[in-house]
Structures are given as C-alpha cells and as structure tokens.
C-alpha cells in the first residue's frame, strides 16, 4: 500500500511533466528568455501546482502525522546559508544552459531522447561528485 501510493504520486508527477510540456527544453528556455519571444507556460505550471500543494501543506498543519508514516519529514530550517545560495546559482546556470531540470529530464528519458540520457548521466555524476566532496559529511 505504501509503495503503491508512492508509485501513484510518481505517475501523477510524470504525467504532469508531459501534459504541461515541461519535458520540452525549448519550452522552458522560452520562459526563461524574458527579453525574447516569451512563453508563459512555466508560470501556469507553477501556479497550477501551487494550488493543490498549498492546500495540502495547510491541511498537514492540522495533522499529527501523515497517513502512512510516523512523522512529517518537512525541512524546518529557515537559514539562508552559503550552500543554499551557491547551489541555487549553480543549478540555475545549468538549467539556463540546457533547459532541463531533474523532473523534466527524467520524464524526457521516456521519449528515447539521447540528449536527455546524456544530461541525466551527467546530472547523476554531478550528484555523485557532490556526495564525495562538499556533501561527504552529510
């Protein structure tokens, strides 16, 4: 049951990536290209996503524990520190160069795009690099 719900969450997410066309890097870059031929799609995706997720986060405050686990594991830190800033800037740089972020990159694998496959392998290498450098103490 627990695994089934996790898979269902993934299915909803993956379908959302395709239906919203966020799987297409050209669409994402057109959103980021604010001085060019701007495409507002990503704003609709974010706006649409914030409605149910915002509601869920409001509901969770009135719950003692999630339905299928012992406790909520939501990050509590409010500290805007150097890793957060450095990481967000490096991520933004990579995102702006290609137009893919982790969710859409995985969804793009299902189209058998060789570019998405190269990108995902490089992304995993980047995560591994972090694991054995800056993230080794975590």
């Amino acid at each position, binding site marked *: 049951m627990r695994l*089934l719900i*996790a898979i269902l969450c*993934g299915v909803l997410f993956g*379908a959302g990536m395709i239906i919203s066309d966020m799987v297409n890097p050209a669409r994402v870059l057109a959103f980021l290209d604010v001085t060019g031929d701007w495409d507002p799609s990503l704003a609709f995706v*974010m706006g649409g996503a914030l409605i149910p997720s915002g509601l869920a986060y409001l509901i969770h405050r009135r*719950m003692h524990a999630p339905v299928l686990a012992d406790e909520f594991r939501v990050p509590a830190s409010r500290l805007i520190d150097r890793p957060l800033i450095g990481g967000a800037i490096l991520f933004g740089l990579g995102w702006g160069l290609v137009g893919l972020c982790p969710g859409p990159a995985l969804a793009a694998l299902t189209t058998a795009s060789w570019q998405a496959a190269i990108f995902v392998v490089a992304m995993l290498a980047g995560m591994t690099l972090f694991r054995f450098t800056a993230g080794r103490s975590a």
Partner: protein
Amino acid sequence: MEPISYIWPLTGGLLVGASAGLFLLMHGRVAGISGLMASGLRLGGSGPRGLSLGFLGGLLGGALLAGLVIRTPEVFVTSSLPLLIVGGLLVGFGTRWGSGCTSGHGVCGIARLSPRSLAATGLFMATAALTVFVTRHLTGMI
C-alpha cells in the same frame, strides 16, 4: 515551436501539485525530484529508499503513459554535447548543494512559504534567465 494553450501547462501543473500534496499527506515527505534521486540511488539523500525508487519509477511510467495516450511529447534540445554534459553536472551538483530543485524548492517549498525555498527559487530562476540572456542575446552561443 508552436505556442500551446494555457490549459496544458495549467492541467500539468495541477497534476504535479496533486502529486506533491498526496506525497506529503500520505508519506510526510517533500516531492523533490533531486532529493528523491539522491535517496533512491544512495547519493546522500534521506528518507526510505524504496519509496523514493517507487516514486521515480512511477514518474517514468506516468510520463510514458501520458506520452502514449494524452499528448505526444516533443523534446527539442538546442544545446551541443559539451553543454549538455556541463549543464547536467551543474544541475546535479547544484541541486544537491542547494538542497532542492524546481519541484522541492519551487513547488513544495513555496507552497509552505519556506524562506529558504523562496530565496532558492528566486536565485535559480534569475540565474537561469540571466544565463539564457547571455547565451542567446549577448554571445549567440546557443
């Protein structure tokens, strides 16, 4: 690239938000893809590994299914091979260092008005937009 009706991104966004909301209320976890990849593949993330892998497997299945029955996806990549590799490395390293990506910070973090996520989302959006401006309009690199 053809413009699309706002109905598509809005519907897709609602599905992503439903996924994040359900994952929170059922499993108590943030539906952030970079974090789920890290915990699923033992690259330093936290949380039950099986659930992370289940989510990621579902993501692939849902994308495949939606691509077959709802909308044929088009993945149009403009970047050259070296840029794909550099971009992937930066996204992988940066999302782990900064504790999240567009889903973890952008959707789940903003939904609960986390100051960290608001700052991170503002920063990665601004950096990405600046990167596109430099590569497209200043240097014509892409």
